[in-house]
């Protein structure tokens, strides 16, 4: 039963990640390969705040959001000057640099050793320690993120994002401040991913840099694309499918090392197949087109 709940909690975390990345890549059309960096910043901000200052969940989450917002502004900056796949390569560079900081700044982040023993969060004196309670907490954040993003993309703000995606010059000409929108979308998307990171760190109670690699970023964009670009339901669907299906591999009785490889082969192959036959994903309304 706990295993089943564990999967549901992971799905909730990945729903938050997928929706936030969809806001950046699906709605605004900025292909980003740096989302695991935001996720990692959330997790590391949480773990480090706890490690050095012994602060609790609610403080940690805000620190993560703050740091992510700053990184969001930095990553959004190239999108003003370079486009399409070149921008994707720039985000790739940021991802590698952030990972390198997690991995190599041993004095501060503990490097490859990771940070163990992050305690369960407590909410109004009530400790969230059981799987059920954590499911509720992660579910609350997943619903919150879904609801906020839903409001956002159906507002004039969301329309402007789609405008940037479809025709940037036209959107600019109609008086929208492109710089502001692009920065905001990275700030919002990055903050949401960092919430997912904080949830993950408190839940798993141990983090190390290997959870925040470029492969993880590719996995995240796979969820968004396979689920559906610019579709919130698609992101939920993608998270459910891509988290659950590889778990099925465990039941065949494969050794863990092989299962890890098979999981990656599975989503890599899905990514290739979707790019070839259905680039907008299951229920998406946008495929990555050239600006």
């Amino acid at each position: 039963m706990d295993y089943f709940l564990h999967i549901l909690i992971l799905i909730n975390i990945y729903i938050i990640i997928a929706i936030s990345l969809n806001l950046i890549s699906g709605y605004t059309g900025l292909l980003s390969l740096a989302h695991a960096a935001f996720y990692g910043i959330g997790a590391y901000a949480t773990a480090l705040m706890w490690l050095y200052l012994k602060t609790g969940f609610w403080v940690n989450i805000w620190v993560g959001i703050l740091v992510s917002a700053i990184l969001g502004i930095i990553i959004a900056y190239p999108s003003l000057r370079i486009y399409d796949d070149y921008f994707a390569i720039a985000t790739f560079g940021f991802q590698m640099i952030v990972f390198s900081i997690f991995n190599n700044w041993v004095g501060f982040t503990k490097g490859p050793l990771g940070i163990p023993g992050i305690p369960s969060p407590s909410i109004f004196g009530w400790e969230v320690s059981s799987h059920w309670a954590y499911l509720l907490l992660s579910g609350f954040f997943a619903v919150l993120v879904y609801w906020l993003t839903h409001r956002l993309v159906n507002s004039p703000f969301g329309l402007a994002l789609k405008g940037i995606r479809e025709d940037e010059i036209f959107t600019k000409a109609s008086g929208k401040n492109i710089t502001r929108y692009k920065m905001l979308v990275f700030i919002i998307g990055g903050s949401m991913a960092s919430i997912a990171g904080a949830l993950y760190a408190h839940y798993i109670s141990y983090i190390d840099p290997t959870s925040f690699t470029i492969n993880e970023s590719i996995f995240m964009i796979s969820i968004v694309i396979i689920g559906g670009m610019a579709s919130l339901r698609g992101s939920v669907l993608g998270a459910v499918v891509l988290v659950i299906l590889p778990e099925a591999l465990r039941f065949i009785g494969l050794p863990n090392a092989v299962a890890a490889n098979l999981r990656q082969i599975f989503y890599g192959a899905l990514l290739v197949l979707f790019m070839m036959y259905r680039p907008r994903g299951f229920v998406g309304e946008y495929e990555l087109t050239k600006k």
Partner: protein
Amino acid sequence: MLKQLLLNGLISGSIYALVALGFAIIYRTVRFFHFAHAIVFTSGPYFTFLFKNVFLIPIYLSIPLAIISSTFLGCLLDISIYRPLRQKKASSMILLLASLGIYIVLQNLLSMVFGDDTKSICISKILEGINIFGARITSIQIAIICITIILLLSIVIWMKKTKMGKLVRTVSNDAELADISGIDSDKVILSTFAIGSSLASVAGILVAFDVAMTPTMGFDALMMGVIAVIIGGIGSISGIALGALLLGLAQNLGVWYINSQWQDAIAFAIMLIFLLFRPQGFFGKPLKKAEI
């Protein structure tokens, strides 16, 4: 010490140049980031390992066989995946993601078959390096530098003198116009995949002989190759070679000041600076419109 670092820079620069050149030749005709180039690079040494240690074929036959196999792999990727995507007029981002997917699949396949551990295809016991001007260099490293120079020169001659080389330049300039003039651009692109893949495979085998091999070695090598291309500018072969050399030297000399574990981060920071302020590189003419 300084001489040794300069020499090491020259050696890594040579490898980067081979990878970068192969990547750039392909990029110039297809206009997308062919990430699976990394796995073609890795496939070279692993094919060599397969032929030499599993099928027990002598080394002087294993290496050419491995290069042919990797070349075939690169061409197969183009025919089976990229060509159908091109026909659908897929955007460069879709092709980029597809190639990332291919890379993930094949790299994990390699890990599953051969294991994640470091493997070696060294033939003889480790030799003490030869002393040149106070710096040590092994015979493999001399081979790396010589082979790189020979391959770079032959690519330049191929591009300038042969019919296929001219066709490649034509398609690189304007694929649509080339098509209209009756050039079979699919065939030309396939030939760039063949040339680029064999360069990557040679580079991979050289690295495996010099150091060792792991299933993820190609990714690091390709990243440095891409950075070299962005520094040098994708348009010119000499620019790419110089970019690779600069990157190799910068990384190795950087060890004087900064801990070597930060090499990658610094390389990517350099790449970001170039992307932002000089996307056409030091020497290249802008190929891609920086503005919409």
